[in-house]
């Protein structure tokens, strides 16, 4: 694991690079996009282990912190989907440079998966693979969920959402998320039931992508385990993603 700082000098981003087993440049590369807020902290271990497993499967992997999160620059209140899309492009370029792979796959968990999907629309590069692990498909519902956590009392991190970010999140729904996504192949992993999944999955396949869907009975990586501040490791999910033939 190699820590790297990249991106624009006025807003540097921090990431961790996992070189593919064997050390050779080229081959396959995947950018892993983290969740937001408390979910980021809780899922950090799971994503690190996933990156290690992908590296053993000869993927070059870059995990990184979005602007305003983790070790990256900026305040959480400055988070915007638009800014995170720019972060993703900077991370993609960094991974291409580190790995020597010109076409980078995208993967993400929760809101990270949602942003990864959004990054596959319009004129964006078409990734050879897209992994969506429990993507947020209902932005308004996600905001209500955050508000519920904040209202639970006790030691919960207030997830400070600006009005602009809330507006962006409110626009996210399964129908608009799935439509317009261009990727050669897609893996969607559900560990929590989603009423919107059929809508999302239908949209993902509209442009000819091969869409594989897995429903796995596993603990939710972004939830807190035993008051430790971190989440469980859903081994079955990590194994499925690492072994997926994109």
């Amino acid at each position, binding site marked *: 694991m190699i*820590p790297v700082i990249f991106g624009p000098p006025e807003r540097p981003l921090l990431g961790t690079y996992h070189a593919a087993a064997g050390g050779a440049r080229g081959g396959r590369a995947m950018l892993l996009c983290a969740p937001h807020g408390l979910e980021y902290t809780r899922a950090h271990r799971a994503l690190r282990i996933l990156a290690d497993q992908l590296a053993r499967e000869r993927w070059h992997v870059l995990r990184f912190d979005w602007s305003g999160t983790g070790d990256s620059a900026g305040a959480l209140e400055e988070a915007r989907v638009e800014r995170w899309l720019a972060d993703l492009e900077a991370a993609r370029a960094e991974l291409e440079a580190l790995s020597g792979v010109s076409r980078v796959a995208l993967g993400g968990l929760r809101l990270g998966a949602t942003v990864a999907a959004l990054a596959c629309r319009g004129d964006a590069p078409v990734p050879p693979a897209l992994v969506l692990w429990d993507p947020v498909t209902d932005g308004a519902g996600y905001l209500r969920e955050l508000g519920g956590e904040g209202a639970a009392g006790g*030691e919960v991190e207030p997830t400070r959402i600006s009005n602009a970010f809330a507006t962006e999140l409110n626009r996210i729904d399964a129908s608009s998320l799935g439509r317009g996504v261009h990727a050669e192949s897609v893996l969607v992993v559900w560990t929590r039931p989603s009423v919107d999944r059929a809508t999302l999955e239908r949209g993902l396949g509209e442009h000819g992508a091969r869409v594989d869907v897995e429903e796995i009975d596993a603990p939710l990586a972004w939830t807190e385990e035993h008051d*430790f501040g971190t989440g469980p490791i859903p081994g079955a999910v990590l194994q499925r993603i690492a072994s997926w033939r994109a």
Partner: protein
Amino acid sequence: MHEIALRYGEGVTPLAGVLTMPEQLATEPPAFLILGAGIVHRVGPNRLHPSLARALADAGFVSFRFDFAGFGDCPPRRDALSLADGVASDVEETLDMLERRLGVGRFVVAGLCSGADNALRAAARDERVVAAVMLDPTVWRTRRWYLEHYGRRAVQPRIWRDVLTGRHPIWSELGERVGSRRGEEAAADAGEVAPPELFRTGYLERETMARDLSKVLARGTRLFTTFTGSWSPLYNYAGQLFDVFPQIDFGDRLRLAYRPETDHTFSDPMQRQRLLTEIVEWTRASDFAPGRSPRPPLRSAQASSGS
């Protein structure tokens, strides 16, 4: 302010962290080492550690935050050290690296929860550590804790009503204690795994902590200690620390604060800012011990990232 990602310790167990450099260094400052809390990675709960690092940088102080081996972005240990010994080894290796890289011989080690205990331990082991910032460290109840705890409740009629009508949580707690004892036996029979060992690397014995406190204070080490409202099951009045360790003369080397309105991770922005300001002001005002003469740096602190 700028930050550099560092990877070091390649010879034994690779470690990694982030060095935060101010644009202008304060005069002969100590460098800060920020330790991880529990099994949360180096960012800390609610992004506490980058917040602290950047506030210190704004005031002219260098800091470094890193992951212990096997946690965060660091691979598992390659040696056979226990978790507690491994943590101590990682701290020492990190101090060595910073001393060489920065040419600094004095350090302030900061931590929350288990990180606070490890900060004190680091100070006790290493004369380079001239101060420790301890947020919600291990502490013990005192007789007055019980008076405060039950006394506050005794004056609330609602409490008495709930006790007499069986609705008070004490009845379910009593039931759980009976049940949990049976449950623990069942769990042991089923081979269930106890919570991570890292949660048991804090001080288990008051005497051990007292010994370390006495040792560091005798050396002139400064202590910045804060207890929050989240620690109320253990700490519930200002000055309780003096009652926990009545045999210790803290003199003017301890800055102690009790913040019942604050939660464990200082998640409220105003409370967070207050903490950061207090740490910076305390650092500026403190007359730290000289530490030791630093070893000559191997290279400039402006070295490239990832090296």
